[in-house]
Structure formats: C-alpha cells, structure tokens
C-alpha cells in the first residue's frame, strides 16, 4: 500500500488519495479458477504457430498468413521509445496457447460449457446467460429492451457467444474469430490485416503469428446493431500470454457499440498480453468502441501484473464514417496502447476519450493517433492521466494533417493530475500539419487541483472536501460521459471509487 501517511497537499482530498492508493490493494478480480488446461509447449516457434493454427482447424491460407508474420517477427526488434521500464521479456518463457481441457470438443451451446468457467464469469459479473441486462445496471428496465451480447474469451479460446441467433436475424455476425475464419473466410480474408498489417509493429506482428482467438463482428449495410456487443477477456492460466485478435466491420450506413473488458488473477510473475483490434468502417457507418482495461496491475512493489501491449486502429474507409474510442485504463503493470483513427473518407470523424490511472509501480504509455487523409475530417482527443504512488503515466499522441486533408479540424486536450511527489506525468504529442485550411489545437496541462476553482466553490458555500470532490470529479467527467451505459457500472466501480468517492 502506498504510504498513507504521506503529506496531504492543500487541495488534494485525503480520501481521493486513499482510494486511489487502495485500488491496487483491493484488486477485486485477482482470484483464479482451478481448471485443467491444455498447454502448448512453452515458447514460440514456427511449430507453435502451426500448432495454434491446427488447434483452431484453420485453412491453409490462414496458416500461411501466420507464418509470414512469424518470419517477419523474428527479424524485428522490440520498440524502446516508450517511457516504460521493464525487465527484458523472454518470449520463449511463455505459453502461447492454453485451452481448458473441457473445451477439447467445442461446446455446441453455453449449456455445455464447463460450469467452472461459467462460474468464473458469473463471479466477474459477466453473466453468459441470455438475459436482458447486465446485473446491476439501474434504470435499464425503463430504457426498454437493452441487451448486451457477450463473447467470452478465456485464456486462448472463446467459450461462447450469446444472442447469436437474435443477432443473426438482423444479419449481424458476432462470433469468435476462429469461427469466422471457418464460416466467413471471404470476410476475414478481405479485411484481416487491412487496418493493422501483419508486420505493423513488433507486438502486432507477434499477435498476427500466434493469436489464438478473439471476436469477429460484421454489421451489414444500413443495419443498426440491435444490441450492444461485448467481449470479456479473462486470463486465468499462469505464465500464459493472451493474444487476441478482434475484427469489426461496419458496412455502409451501419452502427454498432462494442464494449471490451478484461481482468486477470493476481500472480507474482508478469504475463504478456498483446492484442490487435481492427475496425473497418465504411461509408456513413459508425462504431463506438469502449474499453475498461482492468488487468491485474501488480502489487504495490511492482511484483507481477500484466504487460499490456495493444495495437488498436480504426480505418474510416468511407465518407462520413465515424469512430469513437473510449478507454478507462486502470490495470496492467505496463500499458503500451495507442488506439488510432485513420480518417481516410471525406468528412469522417474520429474521437478518443481516455482516462488512465496509474498507481504504485504501474507504468502507462498511452494515447492515440489521428491521421487525417480525407477532406473536412474531424478529430477530438480528450485524455486525462492520473498518477499516484511511484507510477509513471505518459500521454503519447500524433495528429497528422496530410496536404489533401483540407478544411480539417483537430482539438486535443490532455490533462494530467499528480497525487504525491514520487510519481510522474508526461505528455509527448506529435503535431504534423501540412495544409493551411486545417485547424489544429492542442492544449495540455499538468497540475494539482486548481486553487482558483477550489476558491470559487468555497466562496459558494461548499466546504473544502466537497469542493475538492467536485473539482476532481469534473476532471474525469468528459471521458466518463462518453462511456455507454452498460459500462457505467464497471467504470464507476473503478474510477468513481477513486475520484468521486468523497462526493456527498
């Protein structure tokens, strides 16, 4: 636990400090499930790539694709530009494939899934039954038929996807990517790797070679997905890397909101997670992608925790395509993640809302890239970083206006809040403007709680504690409001307890 006796500065509420400090101490999802697993041998090699491909019963073209990625990967160097310090990762000391034994024969329906796995998800608050709402979302009844379809990924495999039939009626395909490779090869062939190419970067290339499962979504033209889709990732097995691959295609004029959550047990060793998410957004389509990343962050001394190296990218391929990334990053020992938007279509829009909380020995280097290629494209970046303990929190971003992206707009705001004098908050934005009709605005601040705002609140009759609560609350609000309702519950349990705990 961080030193709770640390001097509380004027304007920083003790409760805020304590709750932020308490977050890692009370990591709620740190338990593990005893399940018999089928492991591939440790390490990564062409044989392992072949084995994963064979386990997933993949066609030849998929194996060739993986092998091409693997051969590139062995020639690549791990990037070192991020402001992250971690011991050298031994890529041969990990399991690249772990599948519950009970999944040897793929269950035909959720009823056939090992009850232990179902219990795991239940304990996580992710019911895999096809019920109307996620437990605990208040007011959902009034909101009408709000449903969330879930794809649950347990270590290397997808254990089941709910509401498949109902989604199929609307023409929506929502399944694990391993199924999609078998059942919808034409879509996968066309789009896989088209946003994040096989050899995009070190971690994405590794993922291309060894990804074991993940989610696949296709929304047909003109369709508004009848419910929110979500994937819940759970790492359970020890010394196992999770490499999932998500591919979402929003065809012309369609809409989907997609949620992603992740947790892992407390372990003393670091575990690797290298995911790739590709979003293809065609004309007039819109995708909202929300993440609550709550991997195990390691203990207060930095022992254990997930190394999270994620490549997420959206390609607004058609005119007027829209994408919105929202992320609440509270977990992981190391976060290396830059959800990006390629605004290729004219009038396309990209938005990025992020809250990154780093406490104890956590290190986060996260941000976004907005690449404006089309005319009149718009982007907005709102990033809130909070550092406590001995944590380092870096915002790293790129806004690029190409010569042809005329009349485009970007607004970037990144704010950092420091709690305690042993942590660090850093901002590394890259701004590249190559035409003059576009407007780019970038603002960044680093501060403790603003005295003027406090004074204003106090002059209106609030007591000190109330005033601080209000100001700190306001610091994150812009991002919290961008989250879909289904995530409000989880996001609040992560952020609200730390930052809004003192309200009222």
């Amino acid at each position, binding site marked *: 636990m961080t030193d709770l006796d640390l001097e509380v500065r004027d304007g920083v509420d003790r409760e805020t400090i304590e709750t932020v400090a308490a977050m890692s101490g009370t990591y709620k999802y740190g338990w593990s499930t005893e399940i018999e697993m089928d492991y591939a041998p440790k390490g990564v090699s062409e044989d392992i790539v072949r084995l994963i491909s064979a386990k997933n019963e993949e066609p030849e073209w998929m194996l060739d694709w993986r092998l091409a990625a693997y051969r590139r990967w062995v020639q690549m160097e791990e990037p070192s530009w991020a*402001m992250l310090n971690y011991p050298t990762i031994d890529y041969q000391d990990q399991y690249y494939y772990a599948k519950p034994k009970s999944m040897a024969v793929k269950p035909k329906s959720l009823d056939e899934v090992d009850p232990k796995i179902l219990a795991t998800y239940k304990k996580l608050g992710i019911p895999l039954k096809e019920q109307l709402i996620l437990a605990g979302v208040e007011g959902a009844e009034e909101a009408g038929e709000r449903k969330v379809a879930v794809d649950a990924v347990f270590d290397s495999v997808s254990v089941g996807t709910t509401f498949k039939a109902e989604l199929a009626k609307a023409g929506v395909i929502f399944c694990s990517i391993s199924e999609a490779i078998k059942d919808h090869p034409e879509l996968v062939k066309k789009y896989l790797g088209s946003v994040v190419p096989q050899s995009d970067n070190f971690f994405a290339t590794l993922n291309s070679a060894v990804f074991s499962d993940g989610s696949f979504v296709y929304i047909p033209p003109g369709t508004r997905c009848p419910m929110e889709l979500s994937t819940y990732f759970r790492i359970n097995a020890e010394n196992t890397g999770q490499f999932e691959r998500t591919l979402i295609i929003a065809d012309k004029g369609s809409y989907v909101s997609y949620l992603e959550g992740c947790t892992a047990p407390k372990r003393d060793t670091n575990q690797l997670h290298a995911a790739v998410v590709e979003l293809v957004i065609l004309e007039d389509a819109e995708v909202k992608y929300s993440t609550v990343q709550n991997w195990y962050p390691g203990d207060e001394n930095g022992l254990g925790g997930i190394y999270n190296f994620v490549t997420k990218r959206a390609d607004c391929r058609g005119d007027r395509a829209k994408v919105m990334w929202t992320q609440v990053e509270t977990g992981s020992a190391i976060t290396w993640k830059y959800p990006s938007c390629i605004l290729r279509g004219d009038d396309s829009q990209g938005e990025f809302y992020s809250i990154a909380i780093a406490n104890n020995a956590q290190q986060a280097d996260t941000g976004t890239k907005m690449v404006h290629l089309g005319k009149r494209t718009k982007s907005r970046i709102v990033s809130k970083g909070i550092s406590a303990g001995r944590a380092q929190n870096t915002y790293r971003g790129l806004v690029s206006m190409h010569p042809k992206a005329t009349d485009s707009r970007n607004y970037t705001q990144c704010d950092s809040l420091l709690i305690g004098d042993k942590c660090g908050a850093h901002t590394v934005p890259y701004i590249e403007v190559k035409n*003059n*009709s*576009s407007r780019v*605005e*970038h*603002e*960044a601040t680093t*501060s403790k709680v603003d005295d003027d705002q406090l004074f204003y609140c106090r002059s209106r009759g609030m007591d000190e504690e109330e005033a601080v609560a209000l100001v700190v609350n306001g610091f994150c609000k812009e991002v919290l409001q961008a989250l879909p309702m289904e995530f409000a519950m989880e996001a609040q349990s992560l952020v609200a307890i730390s930052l809004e705990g003192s309200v009222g």
Partner: protein
Amino acid sequence: MAVLQSKQDALQARLSGLQFAPGGWLGAARSEALRRVTAMGLPGKRDEYWRYSDPTGLNATDATPVDLFDPLDEPAPFSGVDRLKIVFVDGVFDASQSDALALEGVQIEHLAEAGRADIHWASALYGVLETRGQSPVQRPLAALNSAFAAQGVLIRVTATPSKPISLIYQHKTATSDAMLHHCVKVESGAEVTILENGAAAARLSHVMEVDVADGARFHHIRAQGRAHLRQAITHLFARIGRNAAFKSFTLTANGHLTRNEAVLELLGADSVAHVAGAALGDGDFHHDDTVFITHAAERCESRQVFKKVLKNGAVGVFQGKILVKQGAQKTDGYQISQALMLDDDSQFLAKPELEIYADDVKCSHGSTSGAIDETALFYLRSRGVPLRAAQSLLVLAFLAEAIAEIEDEEISDDIRQRLQSWLARHEH
C-alpha cells in the same frame, strides 16, 4: 552501444575538413569535446531528435556556397542602439570594424588568445554546459563545435554595463563555413544584454554557454541574417542560479535551414527562464526551434513562446520540452508554439513535451496552427483597411506575444520594424 556506422562515417568525413588546435586549457577542453563527438557520431536522419529536420547539410564536409545577400536599403539590426560592437566577418574577428573591447563592468577576451593560458575562468564553462546538455539527448554538432571552434569571445560580467554588447556576423565569402563559440558569465547581481545579428557565413555553427549566477540577469536578442540559402545550427546552453533571470529572443527571417537549440537548466530557486522566437519563412525555408528546459529547483518560472509565419512551402518545426525534476515544487512552466500558414503548401511540425516528476506544479503547453482568421480579416476590411494591410496587421498581432518577451523597448521596436518590412517585401 555501438554507434551506427553511417554516423561514424559522416563524422570521419566532417573531421577531415577541420583543424584541431591543441594547447592551453582550451586544448584540453577541445580534446574532451572531440572524444564526446567521436563517441556519438554525427546526427542521422533517423534520429528521433532529428525527426523533423534533415541534418545532412550541417554534417557535410563543406558548406554549400551561398550567394551574398544584399539587404537593399534596410539598415542593419540594432543600428540605432548604443552598443559595444564586436564584428566577425565569415566567422573571423575583424578588429577594424569592432569597437575597443573595453566596457566598464565587463571583461571581454578572444577565445583563441585566452585559450592559450593554463588557467582561466572560462575553463569552468567552455564545453562544460555543453556536456551537461548531452543528456538525455545527444547534441553531437554542439560537441563538434566545442572541439573545433577557433573564434569567439569570453565575456565576464561583474557589474551592470552601460550598454549592450553587440556581436555582428557579416557574411562576405560565398563558401564561408563559420564556427563560433562564446562563453558568458554573469556574476552575482550583474545584468547584461547581448545582441547578435547577421548571417555570419554560408554555414554557421554557433554555441553560446551562459552562466547566470545567483541574482544575475541575462538578456539575449538575436536577429538571424536574411540570406536565403544560408544554413545554421546554433546552441544556447545556460545554467541559471538562484533568483536569476535568463531571457532570449530570436528573430529568424529566411534561411534554407536554421536549427536553434536552447538547453536551459534552472538550478536555483525563484528564477526565471524565457525563450521566445519569431520566424518568418517564404519558400525554401526550414526553421527548427528545439528547446529543453529543466526545472531542478523550487518556484521557478519558464516560458517558451514560439511563433512562425509560413508561406510557399516553408517548414516550421518546434520541439520543446519542459522537464520538472522531483522536488522542483511550485514550478510554473508555460509553452506555446503556433504557426500561421499563409498558403496551403507550408508545413508545421511540432512536438511539445512535458515530463513531470513533482506534484505541486503548474505546467501547460498549447500548440495551434491554421490560416489567417477570415472573420478578423473581414472585420478589418469592412472598416476600410485594404486587404494586404489587414493581413500584415493580423500577422503582426499573431507575432506580438513573442515580441513582448523583449524587455527593452528600443530593441523590440527595432525587431517590430524588421517584421513589418519583411511583410511588406513578401506581400501575400
């Protein structure tokens, strides 16, 4: 770590054209600098620190020849200011045009002469601040300058002199390749203004190391020459003590490639460091401001204000960083970089960074780029201001925040005058 072969090759080629001068304290400092640059090699295009500017022309063995520039009838900068003139022609001191190096409260010596001694105050400064500035980012061209610069002045300010010291750099030979290295030590309680102007040479490498002692104040105003094809790499290194002030302003108009680096360390509490720049480029113009300010003490204030006006394919670069070390509480860091792009061909590339390890600080940075505000233009025109005059007015308003960093009114008027005449010559 093995230095990339290409960087070593570039260095070896560059060294072949340079003469090493041993002897005295300076010879020892130069050998040290040579060791530093040898370990680093020259900068490469793939270096993160050279992401937006291509160092090839600065690395080349010989300077690319540059036609001499005729300023037409524009008076030289600061000509109306009472000052002590020290003139360098193509990087070589010219006694005939210079004033006697005598000014009350100041000692001025030539680097080459003073360097022969065994002991000198400047040995605690020359190459020393440059060395401090090599971490965390390497600046091999500064080390190269320390190793080979034969010309420069050593200025020690013990009391506040009656007038500014003006370093004038004339460019008279098309192929000249100048290397200048100055050291300035402002003793406790003293205050000095250093002016610099002129194109200097076809290619200029310039280093100034400044030690601002407790309670001292240092002002620096620079107008870089208007020659279109000249290339320049300049480094300002400063160590700032307690309750002291460092203020620097640079006007850059034209130039094929200009990279101005400022590396400032606030080491004593309650001090101030301001760097500002106004750059105007039309056509073949690449201007790069690279600033690194370290806050290592409490209650210091730093400001970085950089404005660029770009047209016809001109490129403006800003890389600015504020580093607040642990314990540097109550830091107030401000950074703004803005570009006004007068047409669609220009580029603005910026990397404004913050790295902060203290919690009770106020740091902000802002960066904007865009065209002239059409509504403002429309307003002025509706009030009867002709289009071109209205545009110039708005450009000047845009640059005002940077010029406001110059404390001396006479000097800021001079700079403003120069901006106006540049705008008049480069009508949109």
